[in-house]
């Protein structure tokens, strides 16, 4: 009813190619940004900010990185956690060895290191595709963790391999409370998401999708296969690297190499599958779904046991949560194999026509 584009005429190509061409969407996104930038840090308590919203945003960024590579450029990868690890440990090293550099430049350089590693492990993509490529990127996963544990320089010769993230001070201002860390994370993620969106609606993004959809035709049109695939690996790994750095500095604080196992790669992969591949929004929805659903289930079971007045054993609850979590993932994938972002898009299309069927 209220979601109509009637009367909103486009009179230039620039207007037609805006990120949010419909006015109601622009109002919606402005409201959302106000809520997450102002209301959440003011109203949210320490637990929600530091244990839920901050990691959610960091995962969303990692998912966005993987989505650029897998969703847009069509290159399947299981190396996400490795690229995050490179970002985390290199950011630590830049802060340690070049303290005059500052937090943000350290994050960027750490991202660039991850990008370099991504390019190296992206080389097999020039010859192999799909599942075979995924297996090749597994090598990255094992190699990076091995290197961190074996090469003492990376962890500053810490005996256990555990590093402690330095305090973040930007322009003399310390970012040490949960709310400030949340705001820093949110700013970086918002900025990088905007850059990714711009990139994906430009020539680079079209080249990625062309390679994904029909590589022979892409080549015949003049798209350079090697350049495009390696660029996808580089950009994707950069995003994962920055996410890894923030994972260490804004969320965990102390980091061990075991934080970046294959489990984490799979977790991020599930996020983009459930959220929607080839969609920036999907990365955020997927990260939110995977992060928030277990908490929601936990709260719900707490409520149920309180309501019934019976004490459900803790083990039963945690197992039930896992079962329902798994069942919901399967349910959503059956309802919409293209992910929740597609579901959202369909809902919007329906809403534009409502109450008419066509």
């Amino acid at each position, binding site marked *: 009813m209220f979601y109509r584009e009637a009367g909103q005429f486009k009179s*230039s*190509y*620039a207007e037609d*190619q805006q990120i949010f061409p419909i006015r109601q969407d622009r109002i919606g996104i402005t409201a959302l940004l106000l809520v997450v930038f102002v209301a959440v840090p003011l109203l949210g308590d320490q637990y929600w900010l530091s244990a839920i919203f901050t990691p959610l945003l960091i995962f969303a960024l990692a998912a966005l990185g993987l989505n650029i590579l897998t969703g847009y450029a069509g290159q399947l990868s299981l190396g996400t956690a490795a690229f995050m690890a490179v970002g985390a440990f290199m950011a630590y090293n830049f802060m340690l060895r070049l303290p005059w550099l500052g937090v943000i430049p350290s994050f960027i350089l750490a991202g660039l290191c991850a990008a370099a590693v991504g390019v190296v492990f992206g080389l097999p993509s020039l010859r192999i595709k799909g599942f075979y490529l995924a297996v090749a990127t597994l090598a990255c996963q094992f190699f990076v963790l091995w290197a961190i544990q074996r090469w003492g320089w990376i962890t500053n010769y810490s005996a256990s391999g555990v590093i402690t993230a330095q305090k973040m001070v930007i322009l003399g201002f310390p970012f040490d409370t949960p709310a400030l860390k949340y705001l820093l994370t949110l700013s970086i993620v918002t900025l990088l998401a905007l*850059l*990714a969106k*711009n*990139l994906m609606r*430009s*020539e*680079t993004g*079209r*080249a990625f*999708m*062309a390679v*994904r*959809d*029909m590589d*022979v*035709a*892409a*080549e*015949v*049109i*003049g*798209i*350079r296969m090697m350049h495009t695939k390696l*660029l996808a690996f580089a*950009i994707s790994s950069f995003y994962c690297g920055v996410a890894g750095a923030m994972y260490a500095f804004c969320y965990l604080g102390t980091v061990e190499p075991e934080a970046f196992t294959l489990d984490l790669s799979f977790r991020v992969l599930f996020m983009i599958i459930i959220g929607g591949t*080839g969609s920036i929004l999907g990365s955020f929805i997927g990260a939110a779904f995977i992060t928030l659903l277990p908490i929601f289930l936990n709260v719900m079971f707490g409520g149920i046991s309180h309501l019934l007045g019976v004490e459900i054993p803790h083990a039963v609850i945690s197992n039930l949560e896992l079962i329902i979590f798994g069942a919901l993932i399967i349910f959503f994938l059956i309802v919409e194999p293209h992910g929740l972002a597609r579901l959202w898009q369909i809902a919007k299309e329906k809403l534009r026509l409502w109450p008419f069927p066509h």
Partner: protein
Amino acid sequence: MSARAHPVGEVVLSVENVSLSFGGVKALQGITFDVREHEVRAIIGPNGAGKSSMLNVINGVYHPQQGTIKLRGREFHDMNSHEAAKMGIARTFQNIALFKGMSVLDNIMTGRNLKMRCNFLQQALWIGPARREEMAHRRAVEEVIDFMEIQHIRKTPVGKLAYGLQKRVELARALAAEPTLLLLDEPMAGMNLEEKQDMCRFVLDVNDHFGTTIVLIEHDMGVVMDISDRVVVLDYGKKIGDGTPDQIRTNQAVIDAYLGVAH
């Protein structure tokens, strides 16, 4: 035919003694022919004659074991696709090779990728040159969209379109590159009469408006004889005829290849 805006000129592409084989299969054996500027050149032949292989050699998808390709004075032993695209060759495929997940507009925009100069950092920032470039190319693409009469579907994902429209979008994508040499691999295959007529009109209009040289593979003899200036006939990887449609129509070897010979 009435006087043409772009009369047929010099030879722009010549294929000399090209042989291509896949293992024991000899797809092309010593093929030689040339294509003149602004002409419509047809390649015909029964199934498996090597027509598509010939196009794939011209734009660098296949690399011949023998022979040379001369394009505008430059001689190549084998082309690579990127180089071919840069030299102004665009093509369509026999089985539609569109980017299924993208909209019609984005598909056609990819056709202009070689003309875009901004790097990915400028594109990510989307200010100044990157934005201006995007808008300038959008304008050019809109002209192609108008030309191909597909305005109504510009925002539709190509996967949702009917077959005939997909073929048209594919031609539009090739045209967006502003090619000087356009290779069409069975542009009318699987179309009904009306769609075929439309497609013929588009092919002739492209030739007439932009002066694009066209090399086309087609099975519909009516179409071939009607729109092409010269025809080359392949059979089992060998050239068995070359000439104007009238010469081909009376060429005994061609008639034998198509109708069979009494033994």
